[in-house]
Structure formats: structure tokens, C-alpha cells
């Protein structure tokens, strides 16, 4: 299957480590499939612990210089990357829809959201201030610095193939850290397309790498990430089950851990709710991305007085939703 892109260079099927586009050491690859048609879109490298270790070591070397740049200089690169994503939104969205299935319009919205993190955190980097504290003893000054934690890793899920990686990479890079990312095996292409743009805007080699692998490779890649003492922090978004496993693995080297796991969102409709607001919200909270988000309304609790009117409006809403391929302009889910 070939995608129609204005800039076909954005479509990469190799991983990106230490500023180079590379295959797996073994040369093996795995298939990325279009969920709407079952067709193969690409073959992407099957990597393991060795490639991951090299990416981590490159991240360590690169971070020395990256953190020494002025916050303003890092911010400029991140701002340029945000702008590049927006300028190429259509193509990035096409790649995203092909590998993930969401409607193209939704994919474009995700690209804008993903880009916003680079813009935002570039700006925030310029505002990281430390403090001075009045000392309670003579001839002394107390100063508190805020410093980047070091080499970090990110593991991201398939539901937002662009925004999840950028949501982690942006604060890491802004703070002066480096990062090795492993996107979900179902959706590696979006992260790789962002790396094309990162390279173009001059992000130094090694500061951000993307390692790829399939479901079987994931524990090996993850295992290297959580056990390597060079890595000081893991950021993971995904299932609660895997989150607990990774957190446990990180305990051995006391790594800092950020986790964004499952939800069971209650959606409470009280008697005095405005039903128009409720129905509009339902469309977003339940049916956006076909309900495949961690913040999707999972339990709808409706007060007695408004229950029947609500159900009537919900049936109307649900019956009218257009289910189709993500490339069908009429598709809502």
C-alpha cells in the first residue's frame, strides 16, 4: 500500500538512533498494518536490547552538550519543530490515519495537539528558575538549582501515535534531558515522521532516538530501558498492568517514574444538567477515537429526573454516527 503524501520523505521505515536511520542488527522486520483494511503499510525494524543500549549510550553523550545550550536555544529548536509539524500536518495525519485508523480530520487535530507540546515546553524551559533561601547561620548562602535529570526513556501507546511521543519528548528535551522513545508496535510510523522533521530543524544527533520493535521485542527493549543505570527516568503511557510491571523493574535502580495508566471515567449527569452540553460532550468523551482513550467516559451515571430524556437524546446521537474508514471524509469514527 502506498500513501499519497506531498512529501514522501516523511514516510520512514527505519528506526532513528544517534542521528542515523538504521535497520535492526538482525536485519529482521515486522509489519505495520492499516486497521481499516488489514493491508500492510510498512516493514519496520525488529530491535532488541543491543540497539536500545546504543541509543541510551548515544543519549548520554548527546545530553552533555544539549543541557549546556541556553534554554532559549533549546526553545528555538523545539519551536521550529512545532512549526514544521504544523506545516506538514496533512501528510503527518495521513500517516497517522493509515497506521491507527482514526478519521483524517481527527488525525490532523492530533497533529496540532502533538505540536503544541513542543511549542509550550520550549517556552516553559525559559522559565525554569531556581531559588535563594535566607540562611539561618552566618557566612553562608543557600542556593537551589533546578537541573535536568539526564537520560530518559519514553514508552508510548497506539491510541495517539503522534501526541503521546511528543507529550513526553517535549518536556524532556526542553528541560535539557535526552530521550529514547519506543512507540507502540502497531503505530511506529508517526513517531518516525516526527524524527524526520526533528532532523531538519537541527536537533543534535542522539538527543532524541526512536527504537522500534514488535510485541515480542517489547519486553527486551523495555527491559534494557528499565535496567540500564544510565537511564534516570521512565515515562510510560499505557495499560495499568504494564505500568505496574515497568515501575517494579525501575525500582531496582530507583529510577524516577511517570505513569499515565488506565481510567474508568464516570460521567455524572445531574437533574439540572443542560442536555445540549451533555450530548455534545458525549460525542467527544465517548465516541472520539471510537472510545479508545484513557479518559473516555466509561460509566454514565444519570440522575432520575433527567434519565429518560437523556436516554432518548443518546439513542438519537448514537444512531446517527457515521462509521467508516478514516480516509472517508464522512467518517466520524
Amino acid at each position, binding site marked *: 500500500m502506498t500513501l499519497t503524501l506531498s512529501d514522501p520523505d516523511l514516510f520512514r521505515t527505519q528506526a532513528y538512533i544517534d542521528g542515523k536511520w538504521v535497520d535492526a542488527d538482525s536485519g529482521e522486520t515486522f509489519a505495520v498494518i492499516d486497521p481499516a483494511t488489514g493491508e500492510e503499510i510498512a516493514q519496520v525494524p525488529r530491535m532488541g536490547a543491543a540497539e536500545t543500549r546504543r541509543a541510551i549510550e548515544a543519549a548520554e553523550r548527546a545530553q552533555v552538550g544539549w543541557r549546556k545550550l541556553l534554554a532559549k536555544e533549546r526553545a528555538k529548536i523545539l519551536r521550529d519543530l512545532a512549526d514544521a509539524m504544523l506545516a506538514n500536518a496533512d501528510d503527518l495525519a495521513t500517516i497517522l490515519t493509515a497506521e491507527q485508523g482514526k478519521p483524517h480530520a481527527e488525525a490532523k487535530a492530533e497533529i496540532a495537539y502533538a505540536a503544541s507540546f513542543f511549542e509550550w515546553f520550549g517556552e516553559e524551559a525559559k522559565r525554569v528558575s531556581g531559588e535563594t533561601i535566607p540562611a539561618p547561620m552566618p557566612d553562608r548562602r543557600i542556593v537551589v538549582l533546578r*537541573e535536568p535529570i539526564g537520560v530518559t526513556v519514553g514508552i508510548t501507546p497506539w491510541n495517539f501515535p503522534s501526541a503521546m511521543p511528543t507529550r513526553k519528548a517535549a518536556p524532556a528535551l526542553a528541560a535539557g534531558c535526552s530521550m529514547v522513545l519506543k512507540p507502540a508496535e502497531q503505530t511506529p510510523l508517526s513517531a518516525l515522521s516526527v524524527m524526520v522533521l526533528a532532523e531538519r530543524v537541527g536537533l543534535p544527533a542522539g538527543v532524541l532516538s526512536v527504537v522500534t520493535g514488535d510485541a515480542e521485542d517489547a519486553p527486551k527493549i523495555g527491559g534494557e530501558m528499565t535496567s540500564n543505570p544510565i537511564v534516570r527516568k521512565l515515562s510510560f503511557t499505557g495499560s495499568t498492568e504494564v505500568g505496574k510491571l515497568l*515501575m517494579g523493574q525501575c525500582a531496582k535502580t530507583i529510577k524516577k517514574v511517570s505513569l499515565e495508566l488506565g481510567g474508568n471515567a464516570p460521567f455524572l449527569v445531574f437533574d439540572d444538567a443542560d442536555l445540549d452540553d451533555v450530548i455534545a460532550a458525549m460525542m467527544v468523551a465517548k465516541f472520539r477515537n471510537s472510545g479508545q482513550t484513557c479518559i473516555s467516559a466509561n460509566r454514565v451515571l444519570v440522575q432520575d429526573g433527567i434519565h429518560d430524556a437523556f436516554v432518548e437524546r443518546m439513542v438519537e446521537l448514537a444512531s446517527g454516527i457515521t462509521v467508516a474508514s478514516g480516509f472517508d471524509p464522512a467518517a466520524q469514527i
Partner: protein
Amino acid sequence: MLAHVGDAVERGGDVLVGGGIHEQGRTFFSPTIITGADMDWQMSNEETFGPVAAIHRFSDEAAAIRTANATPFGLAAYLFSQDHARIWRASEGLEYGMIAINTGFISTEVAPFGGIKESGIGREGSQHGLDDFLEYKYLAWAGVRG
């Protein structure tokens, strides 16, 4: 999803719309509405991760908040009301990292995104989002005489 829907029907749920795989293909599920839900249903305790809405009926506000909190998760909650006191009571009572009030849309890079309890650790986005990537270093600087 099919398992969740099946379980709901077995437990007395009423499928008003959808309930199965859409004619578009195997990987497409129909938007589905099921009424009569309670906390015994499988889908009340696990993420459905699909376009299926199970409707629970309640009468008492405090009981509804307790039901909403009866889960190890605490990521996002949504509430709809026009009464400001009720909005405060519910927002303070709900054990969640993010509360959506009269909207279904909360994702923005300027606000701290994340959950409590088993929904996670840390926040992404906002000025606080950098905290997770920074460490404090304390300099105890002595000998500054005069």
C-alpha cells in the same frame, strides 16, 4: 467489547442501539447504548475502550459520587450541572486527577494531565509538566565572610 456487551445483556441490560460489530468490517464496532447498568457489570469495572455507553440510574448525589469513586482508578471524571454549589461539592468529592465540568473536552497542553490512585504518577503538560524532568540541587555555600 463483545464480552462486555454480552455480560451486560446477561445481567439484564437493555441494548437500545448497536451492540455488535459494524458492517464496515471486523475492526469497526457500532456505537452502542445499553441501559440498566450497575457496578456488577464487567464493563463498569474495566475500561471498555470502545464506543459503548452503559447507563446507570441514580437518585442521590452523594451516593452517585461514592459510586463514581468506587474504583482503583482516578484519571478523569465528567460532571454536568448548572448549580455552582453542586459543582463544588462534586469536584471536591470526586477522587480524580482531572474533572471536566459541563464539557467532554479537556485535552490541552497548558493544563496538568494525569491521574491519581492506580491511574498513575506525575503530570504531563502545564508548567508542572517540566517538574518530572528536573531535579533540585541544593548548594550549601559557606565561607562567605564579611
